[in-house]
């Protein structure tokens, strides 16, 4: 909203104050000023001209020549305004003057005719957006040739206030409220405009207030002998400058008073309302009405309407109805000055998608006392705009606020408390200054003793604004100026702080994957789209699998965001697909042919209905009943509080939302290659091996024990785990569960060929997801300082041909076990070195193992190594899947 410095000046003496400089202080003390503008600036050189003759333009049909009297001289200019007529008094802009709208008037020809200057509309002068015709100055009764601004106060400084900064201050939605703040800041008195009205003797309109919840106060009166006319130019320009379109004197008066007091008003044409009977009620569920903007509105029983005995005549607090609109022929007017419930107005306005100056104000929960003030002000303002108007009726004033007026709110506090919360001393913040400031903001201060104060809150601040002593701290602080409060280092306890284990874990993971493995971290949305699930082939699984409940949003921005993700992998796969496509299209091969991504984040799963609720100490306690909770929060009575504090508390069972980590690595196709590619064994193995290596190093960075990788079987799939074990991307033949001891900590898989196909991931890709919460529960491997071995190790390699059914892990474990039995003095480490694939060989595969031996009590002898070697060969020879008699060849070779 806008604040007019001229208007403020009518309520407080602003002599000697520069409004532009003052804007800073206002922002720091009251509300954020988004901009300061100079209304009517640059109009000094605009003259008043009287049109004496109008002739045709020789070269243009739509243009005419205006012959004007400028007092001492005359001038003829080209004019396109359709309303141009002889006798008009209009603004004349001489040549070479630049107007606020940016136009510089030229001294030249228009279509071949000299035109030294121009006649201006309000829009031309930057006064409004009214382009329709020339600005009519006739009523100013000014002499031609004089400067226009001598006759009308058009120049003003406007503050544009950030509305968000005054949502909690209903009193600031009018100029008077703003003026009160200015008065307090300037320490000058506030000049409240007169409310003196002589009401008539006739009974007022019959008001039936049915909807007490939506309307706390309703005032009405009947005004007769009204003649509808435009308001004076000065009134119209003031309204325009604050963004309100002038309509006629009655409507303008309602808007004027709304801008002044902050309380919206409405005026009905009494002729359209039977018996002057006004009903404030909820709309019928099927009721409709046409509002002033011509829109048909379908109402619900949540909407409050003002109705005649027959039908709605206004959408309460939002917009009037067409059927009761002030017309040119209106003579009798019913005034409405009311206080509507903010929440109700907001609901209706947002449901109907209509926000007006009125609804914006009522939403803020206005003070019902302001409605009475506004009613009086309306009569006084309308008298000025329409002096023949007669107040025929008494003032009707009804509603719950009138029948049971609230007691004024008194906040008790102490001077020392107010000072200490600001961090100010008695010398900095004196008693007198405190009292003066609070009084200037219309708080009543009663000293209970030298320390204690009882502060009565003015009704226009008492609604939802000021209720506790902390609010008074703010009042004093902002007027004092927060920039004058000395900053003060807090005395704080020294205690060690460290990152929690979960954060450390995430950092290690991030370092391992980004720095160690060269993967790129992404942060993705927590929502999962149905389209993604469909493409991943999850929809069918969803339907078949009732054990896959997801968190579903009640309101969602698009169907893409209807569900919360249960795993990171689905979105990560889509991201991989996207990034692979970017790579191939843009040919940005800065990382070779590979794209590797990872994400750390939460996944979400509902808690089963039959799962026992666990009280989580980190999850807050909640009071059992709403009323207890309300009492507790209002904190009204210390006695109640202690009772409530003992009330039974229950933990809210939030859905489980463990942190997961997922990584995905895929290959870009080289130039020219397109479409689906049959996986190559080497690519599969190298991608899989790369991912396994990444995970092994990741776990090592987290100081966790070594993991084992083995395929999931049907019993595993019934495990309680937050991992997806039944996902469409899980490759039935090429996957593994990741186990540490007996805990399933993750899943790794090559992407299922169908998913690759539907996701447009042309070549093979690998995906892994780990549950970080489970990893956090696994105790890290203890570290111990160990002197380096004294005696040097010796190692030898064995390459054994084997079938593809051989599992490396089993071979290694068996070999390790066997070798530990051979000679307890020799420590042997077995290590997988590499696999060979040879399709020409009937076995097709060979693996190289390395055995590193070390004697604990001395140097190794040749015999030691030979004995280990022959034990290893004997063992491996007997392993299933290893080529029979392979050991004989090896023995022969050496």
């Amino acid at each position: 909203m806008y604040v007019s410095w001229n208007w403020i000046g009518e309520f407080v003496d602003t002599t000697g104050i520069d409004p532009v400089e003052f804007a800073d202080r206002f922002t720091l003390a009251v509300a954020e000023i988004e901009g300061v503008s100079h209304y009517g600036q640059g109009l000094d050189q605009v003259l008043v001209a009287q049109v004496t003759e109008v002739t045709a333009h020789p070269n243009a049909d739509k243009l005419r020549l205006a012959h004007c009297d400028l007092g001492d001289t005359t001038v003829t200019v080209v004019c396109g305004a359709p309303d141009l007529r002889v006798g008009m008094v209009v603004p004349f802009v001489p040549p070479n003057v630049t107007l606020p709208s940016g136009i510089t008037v030229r001294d030249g020809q228009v279509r071949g005719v000299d035109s030294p200057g121009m006649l201006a509309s309000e829009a031309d002068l930057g006064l409004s957006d009214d382009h329709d015709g020339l600005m009519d100055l006739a009523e100013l009764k000014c002499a031609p040739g004089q400067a226009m601004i001598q006759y009308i106060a058009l120049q003003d400084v406007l503050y544009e206030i950030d509305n968000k900064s005054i949502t909690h201050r209903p009193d600031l939605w009018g100029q008077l409220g703003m003026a009160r703040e200015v008065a307090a800041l300037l320490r000058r008195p506030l000049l409240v405009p007169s409310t003196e009205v002589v009401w008539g003797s006739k009974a007022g309109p019959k008001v039936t207030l049915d909807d007490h919840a939506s309307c706390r106060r309703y005032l009405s009166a009947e005004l007769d002998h009204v003649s509808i006319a435009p308001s004076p130019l000065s009134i119209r320009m003031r309204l325009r400058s604050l963004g309100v379109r002038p309509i006629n004197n009655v409507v303008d008066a309602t808007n004027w008073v709304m801008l002044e007091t902050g309380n919206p008003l409405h005026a009905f044409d009494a002729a359209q309302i039977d018996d002057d009977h006004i009903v404030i009620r909820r709309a019928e569920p099927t009721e409709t009405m046409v509002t002033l903007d011509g829109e048909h509105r379908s109402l619900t029983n949540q909407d409050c309407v003002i109705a005649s005995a027959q039908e709605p005549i206004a959408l309460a607090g939002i917009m009037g109805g067409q059927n009761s609109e002030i017309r040119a022929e209106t003579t009798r007017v019913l005034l409405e000055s009311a206080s509507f419930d903010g929440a109700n107005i907001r609901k209706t306005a947002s449901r109907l998608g209509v926000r007006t100056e009125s609804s914006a104000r009522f939403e803020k929960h206005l003070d019902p006392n302001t409605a009475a003030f506004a009613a009086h002000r309306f009569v006084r303002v309308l008298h000025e705009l329409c002096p023949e108007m007669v107040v025929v009726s008494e003032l009707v004033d009804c509603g719950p606020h009138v029948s049971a007026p609230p007691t004024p709110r008194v906040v008790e506090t102490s001077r020392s408390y107010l000072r200490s919360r600001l961090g100010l001393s008695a010398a900095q913040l004196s008693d007198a200054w405190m009292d003066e400031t609070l009084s200037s903001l219309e708080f009543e201060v009663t000293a209970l003793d030298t320390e204690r104060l009882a502060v009565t809150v003015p009704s226009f601040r008492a609604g939802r604004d000021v209720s506790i002593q902390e609010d008074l701290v703010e009042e004093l602080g902002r007027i004092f100026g927060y920039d004058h409060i000395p900053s003060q280092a807090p005395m704080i306890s020294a205690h060690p702080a460290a990152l929690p284990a979960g954060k450390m874990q995430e950092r290690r993971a991030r370092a391992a994957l980004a720095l160690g493995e060269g993967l790129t971290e992404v942060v993705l949305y927590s929502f999962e789209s149905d389209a993604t699930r469909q493409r991943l082939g999850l929809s069918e699984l969803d339907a078949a699998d009732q054990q896959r409940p997801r968190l579903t949003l009640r309101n969602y921005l698009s169907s893409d965001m209807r569900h919360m993700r249960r795993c990171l992998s689905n979105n990560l796969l889509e991201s991989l697909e996207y990034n692979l496509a970017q790579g191939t299209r843009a040919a940005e091969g800065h990382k070779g042919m590979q794209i590797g991504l990872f994400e750390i984040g939460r996944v979400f799963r509902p808690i089963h209905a039959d799962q026992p609720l666990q009280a989580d100490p980190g999850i807050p306690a909640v009071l059992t009943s709403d009323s207890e909770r309300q009492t507790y929060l209002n904190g009204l009575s210390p006695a109640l509080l202690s009772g409530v504090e003992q009330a039974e508390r229950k933990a809210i069972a939030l859905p489980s939302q463990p942190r997961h980590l997922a990584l995905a690595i895929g290959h870009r196709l080289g130039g020219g290659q397109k479409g689906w590619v049959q996986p190559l064994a080497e690519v599969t193995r190298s991608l899989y091996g790369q991912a396994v290596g990444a995970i092994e190093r990741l776990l090592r960075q987290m100081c966790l024990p070594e993991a084992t990788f083995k395929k999931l079987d049907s019993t595993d799939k019934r495990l309680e785990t937050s991992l997806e074990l039944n996902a469409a991307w899980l490759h039935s033949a090429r996957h593994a569960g990741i186990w540490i001891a007996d805990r399933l900590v993750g899943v790794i898989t090559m992407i299922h060929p169908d998913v690759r196909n539907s996701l447009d991931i042309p070549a093979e890709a690998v995906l892994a997801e780990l549950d970080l919460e489970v990893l956090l529960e696994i105790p890290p491997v203890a570290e111990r300082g160990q002197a380096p071995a004294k005696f040097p190790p010796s190692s030898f390699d064995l390459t054994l041909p084997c079938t593809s059914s051989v599992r490396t892990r089993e071979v290694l474990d068996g070999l390790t076990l066997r070798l530990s039995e051979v000679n307890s003095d020799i420590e042997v480490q077995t290590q997988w070195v590499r696999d060979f694939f040879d399709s020409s060989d009937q076995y097709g595969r060979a693996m190289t193992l390395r055995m590193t031996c070390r004697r604990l009590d001395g140097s190794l002898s040749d015999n030691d190594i030979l004995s280990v070697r022959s034990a290893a060969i004997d063992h491996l020879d007997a392993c299933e899947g290893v080529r029979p008699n392979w050991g004989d060849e090896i023995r022969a070779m050496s």
Partner: protein
Amino acid sequence: MSSDTAPSWQADIDRLSEQLSEAISGADDLEALRAVELAALGRKGSLTALMKRIGTLDKDERKAFGSASGGLRGRVTKSLNERRETIRRQGVLAELSDSSFDETVPGRSSELGHVHPLNRVQMEAEDVFVSMGFEVLDYPEVESEFNNFEALNIPSWHPARDMQDTFWLESGQLLRTHTSAGQVRAMHALKAPFRAIFPGKVYRYEATDASHEHTFHQLEGLMIDRHVSVGHLLDSMRTLLSAILRREVTVRLRPGYFPFVEPGFELDISCQVCEGTGCSVCKQSGWVELLPCGLVHPNVLRAGGLDPEHWQGWAFGLGLSRLVMMRYGIDDIRLLLGGDARFVEGFHPGT
């Protein structure tokens, strides 16, 4: 042995000596020299063979032969060593004057990956706070209405409670709209006095454009102590923000309304671009709005199980996404969660 006639073997020794010294000086590299050495001193070497002749000589000749052949062996060994040193020296000199070395050869392509800028800035901020004794907490994103609203003194009529700002779950819970939802959690979990931050993802039911996202990141700060004043808040915010923004900042407070703080503030920092003199970034004001903060409302303390008679506090909510955008000059917030690796790879690798 007589001195007037040279013994028969003397000529052999002289010849060999000559041969060897020629061979040694003729060896151009260590390998050749090693071959010469083996040919002379090896098991089947010429000098070795010569020296074996001692067994065939008379007793009285043996001494002279031994002395002569031993002398030769000594000389050969010495000149071998000298030659070896000369060759090595030549090599060193050659290496030190190598003009073929291309010091501009590009480094081998690194395989460093990239940490997302949101996490990088968050980790940095965490470190700053930890260094000042703040606990770092991590709280759920799906929250109860109580923690997100009621406990924060946001009453049922408040516009923030409307459907239009909040994602509600079918279960009646919601996606936290601010990290402030952790305030009462922290109060219950930690023993006062304490100071803590809790960063993380938050959600708003809001259409997206270049400056609006339905998902973004915040960092909440909370300090609870016996006596906390506006003066303390000013000092704390200046210190913390200077550390996080890595420059000395000036802060100012303006009134701001947030139901969970009283008094509540909008905190402005001195404009980094113009250093307070006014520019287009700060709309000529010299100040840039950074974050909301304030003294913790007594109702929030109560909801957190703390007696406002005995405990006070300050709190702030820093927009991490905004901080990242400010630091790296990002003008479209949607890039942050867009999942495009090329965006993340535009930042320095590492953490």
